[in-house]
Structures are given as C-alpha cells and as structure tokens.
C-alpha cells in the first residue's frame, strides 16, 4: 500500500477550496475524491473550487476523476469550479478527448470565487 498524499481542503467564505500542489498518483487521487465528497457532505458546502494551477500534466485518470467529482458534488448540492488549468494541460486534455463539458471552469481562484458568489446569490434569489 503506497503512501497516500492527502490534499488539504480549506474553507473560504462558504465554499471549499482545494489546490493540488504535487503530482497525484492514482490511489491518492481516489482518496482525494473521497475526501472532497466527505467534506462537502460534512460542511453542506454549496461550492467547491478545485485549483489545478500547479499541475503541468493531467492525464485521463485525473481528468475523468475531476469530471466525476463535479458530477457527484452536483448531486450533493454543490457546484464545482475547476480553476487554474494550464494551457498545456487544457490542450492535452482536449486532444485526449476529455473536454469536461458540463464542468464549470474559471481561469483562476479569484474568478472561481466570483463565479460561485454570483451563482449562490442567483440561487438564493430563486433563479435556479
């Protein structure tokens, strides 16, 4: 059993923020997904930002995992925003055939937060 890397999950305003800083091997990625969903459930968070700024390579495993997290979190009432994808990673994922349609994206953490705030405000005003 390999040493699992645990990615810290922070709470900022009423959202969760996790930033992947190191290459994640598959088992750690799976653990990360589980941790995220557990935290969303625990905190009843309405939004989660997954920051990928430090990742210069994202392969299909992690790409699909991110898509899964967004879908699963959505079922739990939380909007996931993927931020900080690098151009090299974006191009590679698209060439692999993983466009992550249906997953909200933003250039960086600030824009991601801005989006979540707007969206939360809209939802609370009844514009679901």
């Amino acid at each position, binding site marked *: 059993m390999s040493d699992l890397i645990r990615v810290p999950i922070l709470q900022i305003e009423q959202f969760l923020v996790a930033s992947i800083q190191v290459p994640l091997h598959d088992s750690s990625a799976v653990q990360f997904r589980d941790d995220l969903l557990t935290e969303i459930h625990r905190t009843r968070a309405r939004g989660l930002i997954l920051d990928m700024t430090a990742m210069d390579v994202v392969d299909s495993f992690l790409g699909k995992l991110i898509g899964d997290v967004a879908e699963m979190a959505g079922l739990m009432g939380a909007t996931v925003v993927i*931020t900080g994808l690098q151009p090299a990673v974006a191009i590679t994922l698209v060439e692999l055939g993983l466009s992550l349609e249906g997953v909200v994206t933003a250039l960086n953490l600030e824009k991601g937060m801005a989006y979540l705030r707007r969206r939360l405000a809209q939802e609370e005003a009844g514009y679901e």
Partner: protein
Amino acid sequence: MAHFLSLTEKDKAALHQCAPLLRTHLEELYQQRMALLSQAEELPPGPQGREGALLASFIHQAMEAFVEALATDDGLENYLGRSRIQEEVRTQIKAGMGFNVLMVGIASNQQVVVPFIVEQLADQPALRRDALQALLRFYAIESALFGQCYIAEKERVILETQERIIAVQKQAIQELSSPVIQIWEGVLVLPLVGAIDSERARRMTEGLLTGIKDHQAEHVIIDITGVPVVDTSIANHLLQAIRAARLLGAHCLLVGINAEVAQTMVHLGIDLSGVITRANLQAGIEYVLARMGLGVEPLNKR
C-alpha cells in the same frame, strides 16, 4: 534479367586479369595522367586545380583505388557503387567543382589506361579484346552513375535551400501576425485569415490560450471571415481550440461564417452545436457586451 549498365562476369574476369599489370605500372600511369590534367582547361587554376599538389595527391589516391577495385568482384561493386560515387560527388560539389571536373577525372583515367592496355596486351588478342570491352563498359557505367548522382545531389541542395528559405519566411510571418486583440476588458478577438493547416491551428490554439491567460479574458470572438475554406479538419481544430479555451474559463463565439462556408459545413456534417455563432464581428461584440450587462449608446441622449 541483368541491368544494361552493369559489368558481365566476363568483363569482371578480364578486369581482374588487368589489375596486376596496372599495379606494376601505377607510377608511370599516374605521371601520364597528371601530364594530361595539367593541360586541362576544365580544371580551375590554383592548388586544387591544374597546378596543385592537392590534385596530385588526389589523383594518386584515385589511381590506387582504381587499380585496387579492378582486382576483385567486391572491389568493382564498391567502386561502381552509388554510395562511393555519391560521397565523391558531394565532396566535389562542396569544394566548388562543377560537373565538367568530374568528367575530366573519368576521361583522363580512360585516356591513359586504354592505350596502355592496347599496347601491353598486344600479344594476347583475346584478353585484349575482352579487357577493352570491359573497360568501355566500365567507364560508361562510371560516367552514367556520376551524372545521376550529380543531378540528384544538386536537386537535394536546391530543395534544402528552398526549405530553409520557406522556414525562415514562415517564422517571419508568424512573428508579424498577432494572434489575439483585446477589444474590451476581458474580451478578446482572434481574427483568422487565410488557409489553416494543422501547424497553424496548433499555433493559433496556443496563442489563444496564452492570450486568455495574459488578458484574463472570459470572452473570445473568433472571426473566420478571412478563412476561405473550412473543411472537417479545420472545423475540428477550431472546436479543439474552443474546448481548450473553455477549460480556461473563456467562452468562445464564432463569427464570419459566410454562405459558402455555411453550406460546406452542413454538407460535410460538421457539428457546431454548442458553439454560439453570429454573422460578423459587430454582432459578436454586441452579443458579448450584452452578456456582460453592457450596451452601446449615443453620448448625447435626448
């Protein structure tokens, strides 16, 4: 079936028999050849040409190699082989020697060796006949091969030069064209002009994403008014670019599809569903501004 330009077994046997004779008289033949060459107008003056020690050393080595080659089947095959001759041609061209010089080389060899064989084998008419026939064919083959290799090498050099020029020009064009233009805070325009191949599409995508990052853009208007033909491949490149841009949080809008392009796209079954399109740049800008909650109106309102 044997090739026309090749030595027969009989030729080779005759040449093998001549080899020892030529080897014994090598120095004498070499002197005769140098005498001929010093008169050759085709050779340039200077150290590599008529007067030079360089030529002398070259010719001596050449004669040794020639005599050596005649002695065995392998020797002949190698001597009349494309790789040796190609190398020879390449070296000569690099040294600035023209085709005439190569031919003078062969001719001077022939003009020295043939009379020698005629005289030396006077008492062996059968062998003399076979040897002369073999030498005739030998020199014909050598000349033909030199000709072919010379032409091939020249063409190769021309092609290489052309490719280099094209690469340099391409670079210059790329450096001149600026991929993205920011027309409003967070709004980019990417005008595409001309034919788009894979290479250009790749560069366009990279430039687009860099532009989105640099300008923190959330909207991009891709204007293909200037693209004459949009086939499946180009459409795919555009879709890839748009998908990649979306992963950076930017929404792309496609404008400038004219009637012909629209027809082609439908005929080819290109699916642009999911991509917002507008007729032209102005319509695109209006759309984007509206999405941002902005509009354009006259300054003096009544």
